């Protein structure tokens, strides 16, 4: 039996697809910025922050890295209302993604920090920099530079993971695909289009983030 493909039936729904792309990109942009920031703060705590905070951060990182993203999302969206915290699907999605990326990037950034030569920290100290100044201006930039490729990969994993957020009716890209195929029963074409769009988004994001890395860390070839 020959398959008859009718992409027009899917593409005619372009406003929905566009909205989905916009939400996926938006969710990713926000969670990438805040998530990496959260990761940096956690990595700072883990490597030289107050000791009493370290077990807390370690527990958070372990909890998130050892549970499925969809469970984390459902906990925030369906679970928290029982505790009186009622969030819109969109807010729940953003928060879940930030928390998720925060935990993974904490580990990535911490690895970068650990690779800092001791001599650089001693040089900063001998130049009378405070520990915080030393961390922000001496330790962090080369650390981020070292782990930037790993961070980019993790951001893209989180972007692809955002497809799960459609399950709580955040109107992101996979939600749009589900909606379109449920209206016109063109599941095959719908998911082909969605797949191609995700592929384009991933490759575009990787390209963009690699360029950003090269710009923010001049001489990215340097060790």
């Amino acid at each position, binding site marked *: 039996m020959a398959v008859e493909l009718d992409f027009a039936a899917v593409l005619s729904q372009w406003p929905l697809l566009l909205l989905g792309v916009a939400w996926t990109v938006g969710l990713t942009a926000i969670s990438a910025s805040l998530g990496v920031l959260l990761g940096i703060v956690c990595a700072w705590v883990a490597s030289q922050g107050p000791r009493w905070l370290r077990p807390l951060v370690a527990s958070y990182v372990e909890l998130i890295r050892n549970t499925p993203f969809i469970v984390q999302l459902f906990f925030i969206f369906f679970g928290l209302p029982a505790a009186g915290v009622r969030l819109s699907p969109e807010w729940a999605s953003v928060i879940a993604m930030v928390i998720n990326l925060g935990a993974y990037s904490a580990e990535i950034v911490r690895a970068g920090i650990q690779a800092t030569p001791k001599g*650089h920290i001693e040089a900063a100290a001998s*130049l009378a920099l*405070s520990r915080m100044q030393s961390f922000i201006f001496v330790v962090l930039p080369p650390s981020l530079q070292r782990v930037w490729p790993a961070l980019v990969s993790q951001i893209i994993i989180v972007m692809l993971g955002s497809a799960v957020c459609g399950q709580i009716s955040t109107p992101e890209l996979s939600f749009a695909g589900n909606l379109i195929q449920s209206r016109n029963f063109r599941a095959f074409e719908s998911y082909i289009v969605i797949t191609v769009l995700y592929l384009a988004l991933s490759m575009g994001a990787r390209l963009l983030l690699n360029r950003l890395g090269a710009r923010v860390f001049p001489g990215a070839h340097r060790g």
Partner: protein
Amino acid sequence: MPADLTPAVPALTIAGLRKSFGSNEVLKGIDLTVAPGEVIAIIGKSGSGKSTLLRCVNGLETFQHGTLEVDGQALAQDNAAAMRALRQRVGMIFQSFNLFPHLTVGKNIMLAPGLVRKLPADVLLERARRLLERVGLAEKFDAYPDQLSGGQQQRVAIARALAMEPMMLLCDEITSALDPELVGEVLAVVEALAKEGMTLLMVTHEMNFARKVSDRVIFMHQGRVHEQGPPERLFADPQTAELRQFLSSLQ
């Protein structure tokens, strides 16, 4: 009272300093007074405690017993703010240069005076250019450390330390990581500093340089100042068997 009538406060006074790593005592009671402008070369076998002593002076190592005063100010190991104040007065140059790899040469020099002294940008820029010129690297302002030779990196490290206008410089085997042909350019800069009156404490394996530049040579052995004196006498006429053995092992 005019400044020239005040009795000179020693640049550095160390008394009864003891330092252990765990149960291993590496400094077993050091007494040392350094006059302002004095150039001191510290020599001795590896493991004799010379680098550790140097690192105690700016608080990179903590010590358990004794006192250490820089310019009359007692070192307060537990007080972070006091340690930062001290480190503004005591610069340090390392064996492995330790330039910040993500910053250009100019920014390496301007970072600390900008963050710690909060100097305005034009003053920073002027100072960095002047110091780079002084170490013979004026054209390297925008280069990254890994584009420089070891000798050039070490000269930048010296300029970076000088940018904080320290009263004393600690040099921890600053030519040991250099190819032989690059040692001279670094020592020339240090020698010029010595002539200008900078107080220098240097751990070195360059005996000819120590002989030529220092006012006093300190021979350390097993965590103690074993013998000290002016270089002419110390090298020509060592009094202890240990120093004689050390000097002959270098031949």
